[in-house]
Structures are given as structure tokens and as C-alpha cells.
């Protein structure tokens, strides 16, 4: 379907597609098998200027907004969503700085991200704070010109590999939700170390690692927004980044659909290609329709965000929940269409199915997304 991309957006999409097909595709199976971070590939991506698609031009980016971000994530995810999430995870860690950073903070961190030299990460999740993200235990105690961080974060995407981390921590326990703040912490800061690298079901080329803070002193200049605004930073960040997860899911679904169609055209049983059978055709038709609907929703929300629309929480949650559920269904169907071959690691669809699952879980589980959507419905006034 034609989404009337501008020539600049088409160029971004084309370059991302070439990157994915020419450079990522040959490396994909090995990265998944060895759970290896694709640092060399990210270097190749950096040279295309695409690492900065969502960074404003005044900080060295291309100023393409969240829509361009989604285009890049989708194209790479069509081939390998693990590699895509290494790019997208930096986005998630950088959006707080974009939305809430001071001029000094933006000038310090954004150019490196735009150039692809800085990898970022977003550190919210803890062992006891998953869906209940308010139940933060990591503390950041003010001590003169520093905040002293103590605590651990769990399952942080790009953990260990990232240079810059946006970390959520409690600055004033007495104030409850209003006592949580966001701070920028750089790798190498004394007292900041990493836990083990997780062995995951999918997106295995992505690095998922715990963070350990032990009297880690962070300059007070690294506070984002104001003390107590942490959960607002989180909420506004996730509103912007959720379409990105949607785009990842759309890409996974499209990649799986492409593989299934290609296979069904060539696989002959009962003396004809199986794509001639109505049973297969109906499965493929539903896969294609769902993928297109997910894409249309994700693109609409991304465009709304870039146009400055207020109150995008419901739409962002819808984009994420719908697209991720579609990705899980479409990849499962793709394996089914390909039958035994789909189950073998010789073909990429089993990896796509393993990769799809996380999109229903992270950046807010799909159950949390439904809570958000329902809460908005409850808040909305009766028009009629």
C-alpha cells in the first residue's frame, strides 16, 4: 500500500532496506546462534547517516522524527529484529534527552548518537519493578554536587554495550511516585558495573544485561528535567517509543510473510505449488491483511507524534499492542505454512517467531497496554 512517503522518507527507507538485505541478512543466522552483539554492522549503519534519523538537524541528525525512526526499524526488522533493536534501544535511551534535556545535555549527547558513535539504553526495569514500574528500588541520594546511585536494573536492552544510560531511580522515597527521577549515567562511571548477559529466546543479537550501581556518583548536571519528574519522563518517553516497537513488529511480520509466500510458490505437493490451495491462500491473505493494518496504525501514530499531537498515549498503546499481537500470529502462521521446513533453523521463520514474542512483552506488556487504552476510554468525555 502507498503511504505517500516524501522523497526523503523513501530514500531513508531504501538505504535501510539495502543495509538490511545486503549487510545484515548474511550475518543474521550466526548472530542469533552465538548471541553476538552486531557492533560491526552498527558501524556500517552509522556511515549511512541513518543512526540520526530521529535526531534534530541542529544536533547532527536528519530531523526525520519518529516516522523516519519507524521506517528504519521496520526495514531492518524485516530481516533481523535483533539487530533492529540495537538501533531502536538507543532511540529509547535517547528520547528522554530529546524530550527533557537541557541545551547542555542535548549538545553533549545527541551528536554522538546521531553519528552512530554513541549507543544508548533506557534503564527502568528492576527485579521487583516490571509492569509495576512505580515500585522502584534503585536510589539516587543527593550528596553535594552529585547523586549517589545504589541498586540494580534488570534486563536492560543494549546493557553493557551502551555508552549512555537513562536511569530511573528514587530521589525521595517519602514522596512516592513523585519522588522518582531520571538521570543520565555514562558507562565507565566508578560504581557502575554490569550483571551477566541474558540467554534469550529471541532477539539474541541484542545485548540484555543487568546494571549494578554501587555508590555510583553521578554529577547533578545529569539529572533530566527536575527531581520527582521521573515517571513523567518514563510515560512521555514510552508514548513516543511504542510506535517503534510497533514498527519492529510490523517488520517481523512482513519478513515472515515474505518468506512464507516465497516458499509456498515453490513447494510442490499433490503436483502443484501449495500456494494454489485455498487453505494456504486464506492463511496468507489474513497474514497480509493483518500486517498492513498494523503498518497503517503504526504509521498514523508516528505521524501524529511528529505533528505535535497531544495525548497520544492511547494511540501509541494501540499501535504497540496490535502490531505485536499481529507479529506473533503472522510468524506462527508462517512457520505453519512452511511446515517442517519452517521448523528448521535452515529457514529464518523460526527465528522470526522467537523474535516476535518479546514485542508482546517489553516496553509495557500487552496487558499493560490494554490497561492504558481502557483508562483513556474511561477518562474520555461522552461526546454523544
Amino acid at each position: 500500500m502507498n503511504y505517500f512517503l516524501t522523497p526523503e522518507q523513501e530514500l531513508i527507507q531504501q538505504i535501510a532496506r539495502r543495509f538490511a538485505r545486503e549487510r545484515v541478512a548474511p550475518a543474521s543466522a550466526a548472530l542469533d546462534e552465538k548471541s553476538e552483539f552486531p557492533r560491526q554492522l552498527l558501524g556500517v549503519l552509522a556511515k549511512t547517516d541513518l543512526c540520526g534519523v530521529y535526531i534534530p538537524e541542529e544536533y547532527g541528525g536528519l530531523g526525520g522524527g519518529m516516522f523516519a525512526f519507524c521506517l528504519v526499524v521496520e526495514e531492518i526488522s524485516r530481516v533481523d529484529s535483533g539487530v533492529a533493536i540495537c538501533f531502536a534501544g538507543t532511540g529509547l535511551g535517547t528520547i528522554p534527552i530529546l524530550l527533557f534535556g537541557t541545551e547542555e545535555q542535548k549538545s553533549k549527547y545527541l551528536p554522538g548518537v546521531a553519528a552512530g558513535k554513541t549507543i544508548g539504553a533506557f534503564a527502568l526495569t528492576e527485579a521487583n519493578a516490571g509492569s509495576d514500574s512505580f515500585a522502584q528500588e534503585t536510589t539516587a541520594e543527593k550528596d553535594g554536587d552529585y547523586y549517589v546511585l545504589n541498586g540494580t536494573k534488570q534486563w536492560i536492552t543494549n546493557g553493557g554495550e551502551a555508552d549512555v544510560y537513562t536511569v530511573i531511580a528514587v530521589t525521595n522515597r517519602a514522596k512516592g511516585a513523585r519522588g522518582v527521577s531520571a538521570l543520565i549515567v555514562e558507562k565507565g562511571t566508578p560504581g557502575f558495573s554490569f550483571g551477566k548477559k541474558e540467554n534469550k529466546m529471541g532477539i539474541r543479537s541484542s545485548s540484555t544485561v543487568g546494571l549494578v550501581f554501587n555508590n555510583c556518583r553521578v554529577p547533578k548536571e545529569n539529572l533530566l528535567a527536575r527531581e520527582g519528574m521521573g515517571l513523567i519522563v518514563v510515560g512521555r518517553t514510552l508514548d513516543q517509543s511504542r510506535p517503534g516497537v510497533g514498527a519492529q513488529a510490523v517488520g517481523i511480520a512482513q519478513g515472515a510473510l515474505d518468506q512464507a509466500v516465497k516458499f509456498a510458490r515453490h513447494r510442490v505437493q499433490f503436483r502443484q505449488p501449495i500456494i494454489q490451495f485455498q487453505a494456504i491462500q486464506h492463511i496468507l491473505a489474513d497474514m497480509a491483511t493483518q500486517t498492513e493494518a498494523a503498518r497503517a496504525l503504526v504509521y498514523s501514530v508516528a505521524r501524529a507524534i511528529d505533528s505535535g499531537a497531544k495525548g497520544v498515549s492511547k494511540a501509541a498503546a494501540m499501535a504497540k499492542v496490535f502490531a505485536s499481537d499481529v507479529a506473533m500470529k503472522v510468524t506462527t502462521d508462517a512457520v505453519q505454512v512452511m511446515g517442517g521446513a519452517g521448523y528448521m533453523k535452515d529457514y529464518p521463520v523460526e527465528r522470526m517467531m522467537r523474535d516476535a514474542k518479546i514485542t508482546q512483552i517489553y516496553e509495557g506488556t500487552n496487558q499493560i497496554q490494554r490497561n492504558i487504552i481502557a483508562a483513556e476510554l474511561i477518562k474520555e468525555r461522552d461526546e454523544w
Partner: protein
Amino acid sequence: MNIVTCIKQVPDTSEVKIDRETNTLIREGVPSIINPFDLNAIEEGLLLRERFGGSVTVISMGPPQVETALREALSLGVDRAVLLCDRAFAGSDTLATSYTLAVGIKKIDFDLILCGKQAIDGDTAQVGPEIAEWLDIPHLTYVSHLNEVSPAAITVSRLLEGGYEQASASLPALLTVVKELNEPRLPSYRASLRAKIQPVTVWGAADLDLDAGRIGIQGSPTKVTRSFVPELERQGQFLAGSPEEQAKALIAALQSARIIHGCS
């Protein structure tokens, strides 16, 4: 460091078919690409520019459609593109081509010329070394690694059949390169936007200080009288006996054909 890279637009021979009647390439409908080894040459030019500063100019000789190849090079980040284009150049063999390119290159300030080792349609590997000879500069072929680069000289590893050879040359010099040298980059967004609007410098015969007898068909001593697909006769040999006996016989056969070296 100012670098000139020579490129050729070629048919994508992985896609091409042979016309059985004329025994020539069917070029219609076949996509045109930059000769793959020339991409390695462009990449090395860009890497050297990143290290030393200066500029990278890409140059090609051919009909007007070669401009698309030059724009593709611009989208990779080269600074300037030059097309040598004139009816008078048509029908050139490698000698006339290298002469014309050399005259064009003389108009550009350069420290180093980079070429792909050979074109995938002609496969002669002649043009690069011939350009160096026309310009009276040293050349090093099959370069797989740049060991040392200084403003006055360059030391390289050359990938030969038996192994690697270290060689040096003073600058200015010409190198022909192999794909092991580097991994060509993808187009960048900014360079792609520039490539759409940047003018390509076009020089015809009138713009160049050429000897008319050395260009085009007149300047081409090589004449193609016939091209054909060779008939391959399959010679099969059946080895009999136990697996061990067959293996011994096979080893002996490979050794006498000097395909493997031997201990027994």
C-alpha cells in the same frame, strides 16, 4: 591526499545470458552496475580521505548513461565526478580507453589513482596498468592491503596466486585493488541527496588534449574477430576398488595433475 578513482559501468553479469547466435552478451534489460572491484577502489579512496583529508574524484569513460554510475559513486560520498563522453571514443579497446582516461586524469590534481583489478565484462585487467604507463607513474596491482601510506610513498600487500607480496612505490602512483582490500560502504543519506543535484563534469574530445589517432576505433589495435562459448568435453574416469584403493588412486591422479602437492 587527492585521489582519483577510475570506474566502469558494466552489465550485472550474474544476471546475464549469452545470445547463442552471435555468442555475445545479451545486454538489453540487464541492470547496469558499477564494476564490483571499482567499489573497493572507491571505498579505499574514501578511507584515505578520512585519514588524510583531501578529495576523491571519480572518473569514467563511456556513453551518457554512465552518468548513473557516477551519481551512484557520488552517493557513496566522493567529492567530484567526471565523465569522458564523446562519439569519437566509441569502439575503444583497452589501449584507447586507457589513453583517453590518462589524458582526462592529467587535468585533475592527484597523488594516487585507484582502479579495480579488472572489469567483470572484459576481464582483461589491462586498463589500470596502461593508464599508469601513459602517465609515466609506477603502478602496483592486486593490492589487498595498504601497509604504510605517507605523502611520498606507499607500501602494499599484493594478493598473488601463491601468496602475498610486499611492494612499495613512490607517489604519485596507481593501484589496482582486489575485493579483500575492504568492505565497500552503502550510500549515505546526505551524500545521496547531494548526488541528485550535484553536476557531473562532462569532457568531450574537444575539452581534452587528445591525439585523434589514439582514440576510439582508430586508436584500438585490438580487433575482436570472434567470440564463442568454448565446447567443454567432459572426461570422466571411473575409479574402481575398495574406498581405500580409490582414495589412493585419486590422490595419485591429483598429484600428477599438480592439483595437490604431495607426500604419498
